């Protein structure tokens, strides 16, 4: 299993963090109805919410794979990748906290993926940026 990358710069600040317990996604949870949000939200969109405030919440690392796709051609901007392009796998992952999250999958042979398999959150390189160096993003890998 690959280690979490320790160097590098988040591709966007405030979306994830390395904590003492491992990597987490940074989002919100509604105090009124419990609905989880990623990224952080300032209002609850649940139409039946009795009313509440949104509090900071951290999500992950455990999830199950809902579905996946292989991105076989270089995506248009603003997507980032290292040249030469090599296809990557995308996943939709259901977290125990009730969030379905989009992410890249790493260290995963697409032929061995199955819906419902256990995956784990990692912070891993997205690409190398000429001025900012290695950029990190949230990804999942088989647990």
């Amino acid at each position: 299993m690959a280690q979490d990358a320790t160097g590098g710069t988040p591709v966007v600040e405030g979306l994830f963090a390395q904590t003492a317990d491992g990597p987490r996604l940074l989002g919100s949870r509604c105090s009124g109805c419990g609905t989880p949000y990623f990224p952080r939200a300032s209002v609850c969109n649940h139409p039946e919410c009795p009313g509440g405030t949104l509090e900071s919440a951290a999500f992950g690392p455990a999830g199950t794979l809902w579905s996946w796709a292989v991105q076989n051609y270089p995506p248009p901007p603003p997507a980032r990748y290292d040249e030469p392009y090599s296809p990557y796998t995308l996943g939709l992952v259901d977290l125990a906290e009730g969030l379905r999250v989009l992410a890249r999958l790493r260290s995963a042979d697409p032929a061995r993926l199955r819906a419902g398999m256990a995956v784990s959150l990692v912070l891993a390189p997205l690409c190398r940026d000429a001025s900012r160096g290695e950029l990190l993003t949230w990804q999942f890998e088989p647990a």
Partner: protein
Amino acid sequence: MRDVVVLGAGMHPWGKFESKSVTALCRDAVSAALADAGVAWREVEAVAAASSRFSGGKGWGLSGNDVVEDLGSTGVPVYNLSAGCAAGGNAFAIGRLLVASGAHDLVVVVGGEKLPKGFIQTSGVEDLNDPEYLRQLCVGMPGPAFWAFLARRRMEEHGTTERDFAAVAVKAHQVGKHNPNARFRKEFTLEEVLASPLVADPLHLYEICPVSDGAAAVVLASAERARRHTSRPIRVAASAVATARFGDGIPRGLASVVPDGPTLHSEAARAVREALETAGVGPRDVDLVELQDNTVYYELAFPEEWGLVEPGESERMVAAGETLPTGRLPINPSGGFLCFGEATTAQGLFQICELTAQLRGECGPRQVPDARIGLAQTLGLGGNGTAVVLSR
């Protein structure tokens, strides 16, 4: 509310027309619809236009104003409606309301589009508050990958195979080759579909729709006004618009909540169910369906989600030829998006043109025998769903 009829329908063929403006495409479509209706432009009392963010003389999505200026500025009210790929269905709903309410007797609804090359890029703003920008920057998930997620999930849930998906593309071209307004009019074998490039595994190139240029228009009239022109009117039995329900499981940004029930495009399901209910039509009464097949997946999933067929039944129906024009539930006898390609805002209106032609019995080799009730559906960015039921 008054009864409303489709008095005329007209299209510019779908394709790539580099030397022609989108206004010129719309002029051809509206002129054809007016000629079909037997009315003159100066008689039209209002215009509802599916507004585009991709093309048009003024930009800003003032598509209807471009059309009115081009055909002759009569001073009529223009409504520019934006709903992504559902804009055509959305404009149709407003056009119908304008007539049904009694505000106008004769209304033109038009949609036209010229799209840039390549797969549709939904955003374009560099703003971290824009979920689409954030999604592409941090993860990189173009539209076809979104469709591939849904297709893969169906394979896991229902045992759908790559050959099942390919069979839908084969069927689309089998009927679409007979449509002079379709862009791709060539038959493919199952093997040719499966040998086309894997764009976003598990979906192949021939299983997803490319972008196109095209335009379509209809003339709507009150039933009373229509009596001057025809004794066989095509009735608008229902026209519904809906948006997505919270928690339907379709991830429209970086994340959604895990749904309580099945994952489905709730905006499409709600619009279709509401349209059928308003029309007083049961699932077994529908003679043909024009649905939004951006990918073969939708042609299998949508009829089940809408209660037209039993869950898990779609693959067998396609294999048995039951979705052909001569089958039990003909789906996309026009050839659908797979044969037309997507001229976003015009799609909902080419569907209405097809339903109108089918209900009149004008479709030759792709005619659904004795078609009386037709359903059309679109789905657009932002969680927009529309559905229309036409009857004769």
